Each structure stands twice: as C-alpha cells, then as structure tokens.
C-alpha cells in the first residue's frame, strides 16, 4: 500500500472517531462506574476507537464540566486510589439520544456507500 493511502485512511478514522468517541466513552459507563485506565483499555481493545490515550482525559474533563459524568475517588487493593467516572442523568439522556439516532445514521451511510447512485441529470 502507498504511504499516502494509509495517511488518508488514518484521517478518515480520526474524523469518525472524533464524532463518536464521547458517546462510546459514555456507553462504557452505562452499567457501572469506570476509572480512567479502564476506559482507555476498553477503547484500546476495540481497535477502531483506539486513540492516543492522553487525549481522552481532556474529553473526560469536558464531560465532567458539562455534567454528563461525575467522578468519585475510590481506594484500590493495588496501587493508588482511582478516580471513577459515572453517568449523570443528563449523561444517560445524551447516551440514550445517541443510541436512538445512531442506527438511522449508520444505515444512511451504509446506503450511500453500497447503493449505486445513477446520475439524475438530463444527460441524454
């Protein structure tokens, strides 16, 4: 593969990630509070959403300032205390909203990518 192709591919992935990352982070907290390293590990394991780990902390900080998540410190059996992130009611509402619109969005993009689009102009 040409180096240029992989750069373009990375750009497409980065653009997509930028839009959905915060909702994936919120989704990770849906069932229980999580601490930062745990969240990053889950993103890493997903492959597509893996990102430079340090960039997730400014995102978490904004989610906290926007009242979508709250944080609490909890002691750990190993190592330092962890800061746990949990959804607030408005965080849950934002996640529900995203969950509602996502299938339609995904299907629309799939349709654009797979269906041939004949030109509709008067090209007679």
């Amino acid at each position: 593969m040409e180096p240029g192709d992989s750069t373009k591919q990375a750009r497409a992935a980065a653009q997509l990630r930028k839009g959905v990352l915060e909702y994936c982070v919120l989704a990770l907290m849906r069932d229980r509070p999580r601490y930062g390293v745990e969240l990053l590990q889950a993103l890493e394991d997903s492959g597509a959403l893996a990102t430079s780990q340090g960039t997730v902390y400014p995102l978490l900080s904004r989610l906290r300032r926007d009242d979508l998540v709250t944080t609490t410190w909890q002691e750990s059996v190993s190592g330092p205390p962890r800061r746990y992130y949990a959804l607030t009611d408005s965080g849950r509402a934002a996640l529900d909203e995203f969950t509602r619109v996502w299938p339609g969005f995904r299907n629309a993009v799939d349709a654009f990518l797979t269906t041939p689009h004949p030109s509709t102009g008067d090209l007679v």
Partner: protein
Amino acid sequence: MKTSADLVRDYLSAVEREASALPADRRQELLADLSEHIEVTLAERPKASIAEVLAELGDPRTIAATALVEAGGEAAGAPVRSDAGAPARRGKVHPLVPLLMLTLPFLVAAILPDDISAAEFFSTVLRVIGAILLCTSVHWTAVQKTTGVLLAAVLPTVAISIWLLPGVAPSGAGPAHLANLLTVALLAGTAAWLWRVRRA
C-alpha cells in the same frame, strides 16, 4: 541515564509547556489526570516500562492541542489559537452575585410596605441585572441559565403581573402574604439549585 521519575517529570513538563494557553486550573487538572494515569498503569502492569506507558499516552503536543479544543468549545468566541494567553474576560463575577441579585431584592421589596414604588423600581432593576449576570456567567450551562431565568425572573414577574390585574387578587393580607412566601420559596429554591449545579 535518566531515572523513571525524570522521564515522567520531563513528560509532564512538556505537556505543561504545550498547554500553557489553557487556563491554569484546567492545566493542573490535565496534569493530575495524566500523572494518576501513569501511576495506576504502572501499578496494574508492573512489567511495563515508563517509556512504554508514556508512548501509549501519546505526544504531549497532541494532548495539549486536544485539551485546547475541548476547552475552546464552551468559551464560545474566546480565541483559542491566536492570542491564547489572554483569558476570557466575560463572566468573571462570583456565582453568588447573580443569585443574590435575583433573590434578595424581592425579599426586601416584600418586607417593605408596598407603596414605596422607588424600592420596587430598584428591585426590578437589580433583578434584571442579576438575570443578565446569570446569563453571561461561565458557571452554568445554557440549559441551566435558561431554567434559572425562567424560574427566578420570568415566572415571578408574570405571576406578579397577573396578581396585580384588577379583580384577580383575593382581598385581605393573608393571601398576599402567602403569595409572597411562595415567590420567596421559588426564588430561594432556584438559587439553591443553581448554586449546587454551578461549575467552578
């Protein structure tokens, strides 16, 4: 040869330098988050080297750039890239100021005899200023501001206006006192809620 502590310190000071355009509290928070991450990761993966952990965290410049973008989204209009050293000037008043201006004037006006129209005029002016300060403050989100203005300014004003229409208010001092009490409770409740949900 650099020690592990040196590597971490160099890394964090690189982030600090790259993030110099961030407000100080945001920068400190970012540094605290990153150093916590490093400590926790090392505790969980004792075999990982500091260099690995820092490489996974990523380029300090990228992290700082992300932090600036995230911080820029809410300070609408505040220049982030150019002239980023200057902090946003608007909304720097203490969060108590708009809350007290919205609530206290009504309380004072309710205590004073109602024929002092100057007191009522000043009360109204102060409450309008309070509402403006609330709306321009950085301590609340747009939704919280709207809810606050509706509950603490619009609703009482509409209720009082309807009350003052001829033939609406029941006669006697009792109902008037009750209405005043309800309004004070509404204002105090709204102010308490705003105080609780404010962000530092």
